[in-house]
């Protein structure tokens, strides 16, 4: 191979590599609340934020979490079913609701009681400290766990429908219920629908 051919090949390779690097989309940070947020057919963080925000606003305006005795409600998170075609962690929804309810000063969430045991295992581990010889027992505080008086449960549903042959309508329903544990009655219920229209070629799972 002549030196000229080698030079041409090297130049061509550099040009191709340069073009490829130049065409690669740049990663950028999306600002919160920006207008150019990408919209996906699947569930995204902004959908969970919308559903959680609607639920908390509805709960607070309904008066369901008001108490006249000056005490705060203690909520336990029951089951939030994912009945969508996507693999999602329902904590994305529940955590936002918990945080906003805590900020409102109306509701505390127990992490010591749950359908699958304590969310924070340390509550139980702490109870065993009083039996340990390694721990100064005078520093161990006697536990008195607060029992919840309300439970949050719900379901996320997805429905896909073909529209006009080449479009599809994907509907998500965030259904939530707050139950008074003293009598088993639902004291608050609401549903947030989120509807997306897009190409039928796109997938929503």
């Amino acid at each position, binding site marked *: 191979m002549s030196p000229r051919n080698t030079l041409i090949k090297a130049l061509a390779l550099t040009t191709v590599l340069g073009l490829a690097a130049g065409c690669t989309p740049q990663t950028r940070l999306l*600002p*919160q609340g*920006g*207008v150019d947020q990408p919209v996906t057919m699947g569930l995204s963080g902004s959908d969970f*934020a*919308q559903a959680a925000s609607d639920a908390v606003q509805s709960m*607070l305006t309904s008066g369901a979490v008001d108490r006249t005795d000056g005490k705060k409600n203690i909520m336990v998170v029951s089951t939030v079913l994912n009945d969508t075609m996507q693999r999602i962690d329902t904590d994305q929804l529940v955590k936002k609701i918990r945080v906003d309810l805590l*900020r409102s000063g109306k509701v505390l969430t127990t992490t010591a009681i749950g359908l699958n045991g304590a969310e924070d295992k340390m509550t139980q581990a702490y109870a065993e400290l009083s039996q340990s010889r390694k721990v100064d027992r005078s520093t161990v505080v006697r536990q008195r766990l607060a029992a919840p008086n309300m439970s949050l449960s719900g379901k996320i549903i997805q429905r896909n429908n073909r529209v006009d042959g080449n479009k599809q309508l994907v509907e998500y329903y965030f259904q939530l219920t707050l139950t008074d544990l003293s009598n088993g009655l639902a004291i608050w219920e609401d549903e947030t629908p989120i509807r997306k229209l897009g190409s039928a070629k796109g997938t929503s799972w």
Partner: protein
Amino acid sequence: MQIRIGVLATAALALWGCQTQPQQPTQYPQLQIGPRAQSYLQIEAVQEGYASSNLLRAGVRLYNRSSQEQTLRYRFSWFDANGFELKGMAGRWEQQPLRPAEPVMIDRVAPSPKAVSYRIQLFDPRTPVANSTQGIDG
């Protein structure tokens, strides 16, 4: 003389057209309206009260006075007694479609009992982001 008046009028119109600062209607000091949104929004009332006994609640009743459907981008900001902004999902940027002449009520409950004042920002999505401050999202 006529030429001078013409030049002055043109300059005044040009300056008015280039105005991009959000407006604060004097009647409603809690409102901050973007220049584009100003052109089609008609504010009917700003309401406030309390929800859940001690949480500040604010709302604005408005309608779209243009003949086309518009999209409004809005945000409620909440402040404590020291003027610090309070975090929470009630301070998210949200969007609301506005059909012509259809009255709409937008209201939110403050994220915390510490909230003593609020501001409502109403912008058109086409207004550059630099003009509408980025919100905090819980």
